[in-house]
């Protein structure tokens, strides 16, 4: 069976503006639950940054330039204990290494993006956006309207949350009592499960799960993410191309080994 129809880029006409709005609305719908978790996280980051001695401008500069919450908090922690610059930067790089994999995978779906848009698209490529964009690309076509509505709204939210946290300290006394720290894990779980019809899903996810837990136990964060992820990807490479249902179009006939 043919994989997917070759869809010519141009679909100009009256429908374009309507289509763009629909894409933006879909992006906002996908983003809402994520903001529930990201905003408190940003507030916590802003509050911690000021407590650690950063000015409001520095706390916001971090959020504006780096836009990666976990690595921002880790950098703060290391700076707080007086670690040398290279150790801070190495930690940031290790924590963010997974983005290389995101970037390689998502770049296959950015055909409709101009070079300038691509440059911006990679700047805002955070975990939830990657997951949402992959799900979108598997179902339909990934458009700039969807991608940037999701990405830039989240970016703006992150800056505002940082500002709120840095200005007013801990607005949310105890985010954990509301289970807000659980929103992102369960959101990622849901995103993962939406790929379960892909050919080698179970061996891949199973391997990543196992390796991640083991590495987490032995070496601790952040290495469990990169090593666990790479282990699952290696399994997929070993198994080779598989037929799948969730991706583009109906599955083929010849099923390879399960």
């Amino acid at each position: 069976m043919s994989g997917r129809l070759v869809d010519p880029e141009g679909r100009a006409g009256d429908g374009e503006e309507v289509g763009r709005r629909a894409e933006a609305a879909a992006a906002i719908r996908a983003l809402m639950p994520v903001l529930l978790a990201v905003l408190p996280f940003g507030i916590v980051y802003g509050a911690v940054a000021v407590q650690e001695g950063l000015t409001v401008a520095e706390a916001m500069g971090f959020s504006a330039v780096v836009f990666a919450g976990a690595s921002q908090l880790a950098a703060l922690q290391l700076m707080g204990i007086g670690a040398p610059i290279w150790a801070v930067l190495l930690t940031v790089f290790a924590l963010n290494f997974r983005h290389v994999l995101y970037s390689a995978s998502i770049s296959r779906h950015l055909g409709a993006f101009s070079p300038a848009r691509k440059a911006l698209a990679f700047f805002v490529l955070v975990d939830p956006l990657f997951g949402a964009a992959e799900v979108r690309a598997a179902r339909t076509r990934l458009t700039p309207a969807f991608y940037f509505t999701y990405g830039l709204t989240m970016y703006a939210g992150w800056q505002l949350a940082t500002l709120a946290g840095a200005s007013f300290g801990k607005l949310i006394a105890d985010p954990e009592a509301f289970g807000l720290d659980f929103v992102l894990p369960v959101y990622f779980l849901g995103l993962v499960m939406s790929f379960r019809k892909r050919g080698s899903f179970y061996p891949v996810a199973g391997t990543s799960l196992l390796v991640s837990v083991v590495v987490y136990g032995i070496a601790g964060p952040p290495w469990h993410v990169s090593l666990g992820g790479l282990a699952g990807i290696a399994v997929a490479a070993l198994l080779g191309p598989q037929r799948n249902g969730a991706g583009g179009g109906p599955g083929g006939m010849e099923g390879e080994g399960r």
Partner: protein
Amino acid sequence: MNAAPLLSEGAWSVGSIWVVILAAGALTYLTRFGGHLLMSLFGTIPPRASAALDAVPAAVMTAIVAPVLVSGDWAERIAIVLCLIASFRLPLIVVVVIGTALVAGLRALGL
């Protein structure tokens, strides 16, 4: 470059903080752009590499979530397993709401 301990006890110089911020930002952008760069350098993608890339979301996001099973509190452990089961039948947003409410509820019960 600077091997000497940088900051401690609020003695961070303003300049060095901005150096860290800008360098961290550049490194992070490198990771976000790097995969795309590699892909365009190689041009065509062999089927095996393509299969590997298809596995990136499932592999990396599983690795992010997995430690909840060992490092989370009991509320999180119970909720993540129930949400895993629920996600076979229910849409994503519903699973997120149920999971969050479940964790909040279990914690209120003292788990």
